């Protein structure tokens, strides 16, 4: 039905092929192949026990992290990291909440390792999330953790003043965070 030019004898991405035994037109790279341009990612590798953060953290990185977190992590970990995403509601075993001491104190390299290689039921995300985005996600994850574990004294003076004003006029206090119990039952995180 189609004309010849519409069906050229060439392979398109992911198109099947009868030429190779596995039926794929694309060849898997030889083991230990380093993709062009990916050498620069070497400096993004941080060992498991190190707390280094290889990028400069700014708002842009955090926003990127938020976006990527919502795409790749929130299905299981929930929008706020309580471990109650919708996949968990469908029967996946709940992952641990980020808001517990063990994960608050876990070094950045450990979280990078889990993101890359997986842990327990979670398979690795190295194929879906490029290294830079993994770090953006870690930055956002740290921000999530901080959001429930911050003291008023940590705020810059300007914001603290605003907070105090709010207190004196009797509007919403929101100053001292309530102690985190690590429970996933409170519905704060499950707005998906």
């Amino acid at each position, binding site marked *: 039905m*189609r004309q010849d*030019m*519409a*069906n050229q004898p060439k392979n398109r991405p992911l198109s099947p092929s009868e030429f190779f035994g596995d*039926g794929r037109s694309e060849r898997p790279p030889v083991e230990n192949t380093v993709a062009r341009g990916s050498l620069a990612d070497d400096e993004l590798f941080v060992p498991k026990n190190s707390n280094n953060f290889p990028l400069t953290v700014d708002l842009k990185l955090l926003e990127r992290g938020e976006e990527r977190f919502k795409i790749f992590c929130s299905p299981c970990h929930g929008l706020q990291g309580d471990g109650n995403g919708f996949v968990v509601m469908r029967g996946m075993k709940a992952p641990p909440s980020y808001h517990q001491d063990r994960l608050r104190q876990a070094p950045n390299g450990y979280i990078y390792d889990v993101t890359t290689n997986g842990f327990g*039921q979670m398979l690795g995300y190295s194929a*879906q999330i490029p290294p830079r985005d993994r770090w953006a996600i870690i930055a956002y994850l740290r921000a999530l953790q901080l959001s429930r574990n911050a003291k008023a004294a940590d705020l810059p003076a300007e914001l603290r003043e605003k907070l105090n004003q709010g207190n004196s006029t009797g509007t919403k206090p929101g100053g001292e965070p309530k102690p985190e119990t690590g429970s996933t039952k409170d519905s704060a995180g499950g707005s998906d």
Partner: protein
Amino acid sequence: MAQIFHRSTNFIARFSVFSAIFLIGIALVAVLAVARSPYMTRQNITREQPVQFSHKHHVGDDGIDCRYCHTGVETSAVAGIPPTKTCMNCHSVLFNNASYLEPVRESYRSDKSIQWVKVHRLADFVYFNHSIHINKGVGCSTCHGPINQMPLVFQANTLLMQWCLDCHRNPEQVLRPKDQVFNMDWKAPDNQAEIGAELGKSYNLRTTAELTSCSTCHR
């Protein structure tokens, strides 16, 4: 000399000339109509897949973002069909003994690709690029239709060149703010023409002449 033909044959001669022209015209219209019909464009025709994967369930009910599976869509020409491993992120645990998903598990065990049936097929002389459309504010549902409501995916548009050009001539009718590109339920606001024109400017969209140049899509 007696006339060979009766007077009435004049009418027959005229009638057959006109009806020949008429018939050729009809045939031409019919050919063009068939070329634009779902029979040729495959618009609205659901394809059977090796696994009856439901976008309605995964996107509509579960709310998984397009990019969870189609990871290449922002950075490369092809959005990419996810490897079986992406399925297994959840289905190694969820419904892991459903017979329905056996082809997926078999593919994961044996490292043989699942042979999905391509739904949106462009001619080989079209160099379509997903990333440029995504990055200039063209939403998924603009071309793919309401994927989040499709139990099995079908082609919601004709994919005819005329359809491409409708947009390339007047891109402002579909441009969205960047944070709405992956929103499957986005509806154009009433003043879309103004907003779209403004967005086009902020995205540094090329001129209509460039957008409709042959070599933009064919090379």
